[in-house]
């Protein structure tokens, strides 16, 4: 029997899924720094002290000095000019301790929107500040009743004079209360939306911080006839949906890297616990009922690591593969993180559901990450479409 042989380059040989020596060093440095300076327990202190920022600007500045915030930003905008893969290495470590710093809002949403769609002027104005840790840029896309950034938002951009007037409300704008700029999606016609860069300090903008379970900070951003010039457009007129999709793809890959790190840490803490905790006179980790479930989490993490690395590599090296692999990474990392977090709580027993123990924060973040850029089911639907069925 002879079948037609298709030699698709993407399937021919797998991309390199290994870290080079510099990346291994970066991973180790980030691991040690974040473990000592940014432990997950900070989420509790920020919450209990009613901290108005919700994360540490000082720590963010230190990470900027280490070069981590500008890893992927080109050198002409004062970044390091490396790749998304390098950024993913740091993101994984930041995920281990559920860092509330603005990785997702600024590095994965704002900076990617600028890199993919921003004008030269916008990039020059904002990216150096992002790399330096001084400028926070978020993206507002969630609206009431329109989860996940619908292709036609309810926020309206009406043409007015030589620009537009924006009106509407965005929810869950990550770090919206601290952002120096916010990129919002608004309907510019009956069929298309456009992204606009706004300054939340403008008088007709109201920013209200939201209180969430997961340690991340977000805000409701209300625009009431906010005037913007045409040069505030990010990308082309009516081309906002496609641009947003490309931004979400990269953000999904980056978030998946954070979820990978978070899963690994929740799992490692759980393994340590079941080796120590004794019942019936033996460590509970000697029970096969727990051992086999632990291996199941371990297996999920091993698979997730492979898809996250492949997706991050694709952002740098094979853009045509990004949508498919981003959906794969986001779907698998979400399921894995949720699996790891649920088992972590169950295996910790009663202590796992107390506020005093950090493991509960992993469950809360898992829930937030699960739906941030589409649920696993939505990504599977997209995967099916991309594969023609």
């Amino acid at each position, binding site marked *: *029997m*002879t*079948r*037609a*042989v298709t*030699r698709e380059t993407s*399937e*021919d*040989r*797998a991309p*390199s*899924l*290994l870290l080079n020596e510099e990346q291994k060093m970066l991973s180790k440095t980030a691991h040690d720094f974040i473990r000592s300076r940014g432990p997950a327990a900070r989420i509790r202190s920020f919450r209990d002290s009613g901290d108005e920022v919700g994360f540490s600007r000082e720590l963010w500045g230190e990470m900027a000095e280490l070069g981590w915030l500008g890893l992927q930003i080109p050198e002409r905008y004062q970044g390091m000019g490396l790749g998304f893969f390098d950024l993913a290495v740091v993101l994984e470590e930041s995920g281990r301790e559920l860092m509330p710093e603005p990785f997702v809002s600024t590095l994965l949403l704002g900076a990617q929107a600028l890199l993919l769609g921003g004008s030269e002027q916008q990039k020059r104005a904002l990216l150096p500040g992002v790399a330096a840790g001084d400028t926070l840029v978020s993206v507002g896309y969630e609206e009431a009743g329109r989860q996940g950034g619908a292709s036609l938002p309810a926020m309206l951009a009406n043409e007015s004079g030589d620009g537009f007037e924006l009106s509407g409300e965005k929810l869950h704008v990550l770090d919206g209360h601290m952002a120096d700029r916010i990129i919002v999606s608004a309907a510019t016609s009956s069929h298309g939306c456009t992204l606009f860069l706004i300054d939340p300090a403008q008088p007709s903008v109201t920013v209200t911080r939201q209180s969430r379970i997961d340690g991340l900070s977000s805000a409701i951003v209300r625009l009431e006839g906010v005037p913007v010039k045409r040069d505030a457009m990010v990308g082309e007129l009516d081309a906002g949906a496609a641009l947003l999709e490309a931004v979400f793809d990269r953000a999904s890959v980056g978030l998946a890297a954070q979820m990978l790190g978070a899963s690994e840490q929740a799992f490692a803490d759980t*393994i340590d616990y*079941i*080796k120590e905790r004794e019942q019936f006179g*033996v*460590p509970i*980790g*000697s*029970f*096969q009922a727990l*051992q*086999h479930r*632990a*291996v*199941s989490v*371990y*297996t999920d993490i*091993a*698979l*997730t*690591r*492979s*898809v996250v*690395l*492949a997706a991050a590599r694709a952002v740098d090296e094979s853009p045509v593969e990004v949508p498919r692999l981003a959906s*794969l990474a986001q*779907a*698998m990392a979400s399921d894995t993180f949720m699996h790891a977090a649920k088992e972590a709580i169950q295996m910790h027993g009663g202590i796992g559901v107390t506020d005093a123990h950090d493991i509960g924060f992993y469950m809360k973040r898992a829930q937030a990450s699960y739906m941030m850029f589409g649920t696993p*089911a939505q990504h*599977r*639907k997209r*995967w*099916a*479409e991309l*594969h023609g*069925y």
Partner: protein
Amino acid sequence: MTDLEAFRAEARAWVVENAPKSLWGTSASGPFEGYWGGSKCEQTDPDLLRWRDLGIEKRWTAPSWPEEYGGGGLSREQELIIHEEMKAIGVPRPVGGQGLAMFGPVLLQYGNDAQRAQHLPPIARAEVRWCQGYSEPNAGSDLANLQLKAARNGDELVLNGQKIWTSHANLSDWIYCLARTDPSAPKKQMGISVILVDLDTPGITVRRIDLISGYSPFCETFFDNVRVPAGNLVGVENEGWTIAKAILGYERSSIGRSIARQPGSAQREVVARARRHLSVPEGVIPDPLLRDELAALGMLEEAFHLTLARIQQSAESGTPGPEGSITKIVGSELKQRRFELGMKVAGAQGLGWEGPGFDEDDLQYTRDWLRSRASTIEGGSSEIQKNIVSKRVLGLPEGKK
């Protein structure tokens, strides 16, 4: 161009030029496909035989074995490249089977010079086929409980007992067995030795086992006062358990890899079956739940392939480690899910055993589905693999089983 890139170009050119066209696209080129060799071989496809002969002549049946033992004397990296290039066009290796994939590498590591010189070249030339004598009726997952007795009698060992699940013993020439050489050893893992037995030796009876699929790839092998030279014992007497574990390592990783096939092929296969049986020749498959299951299968398949690649890229030595357990667990699960979904979309047309009303592909698929139930059992059940990962990777304490 690096040396390895140059070698890849050379390997690709040779494979493309020499592999018979009828074999292209027929295989994922796992180690257990194609021509298995031996004196009782039933394969007669002339292209398969020609491909075997070309491979033997090129010394690419065992590319990384030393030349003195019939190998190509190449590095492991070069061997990998050759296999990748065969896989890329979907041709099987010129010779496959247990001798090359499992027994040979272990004999290279643990055998003595005389054993290597006697047994390795005929494997590389596909003249002798090997099978494995591990499991017994009371030694399945608890393999160390094996009871096949090998008693010393002068220069000979006398074997009495029974093996089961000996794959293709009816088509093999030799068997490598685990046998108990010291019944009084204090632990059951002690007192075991690896012994090589010519299956034509008097006292051996081989009986095939019929499976639910109608296939009979496994046999029972009985030993009744079977006398073999004492020189057929491999490695150190009574310390065979170490060798046994090494062979199981090769088995785990090769089973995982042999399931791999072409990336994306499981998804394509089941989508094609769904289109045929549900009359949706093209476009979106209307049932959203089925689409979700297909996508979940496709995603698992892609993740599995990427994980195999990642493990391969990071392997510093050629000896498979406990991560082979992961690929065995996931690979066998993937295989079962693929057939389960393929059966589901076929509906009643998947129920055919033989005869009118069913087409050949569907009949074959149904039997392959039944056969796939064994994939999470053979070569160490998924539960045993989980025990291995639990102990050796996660470092969890041993408990009562």
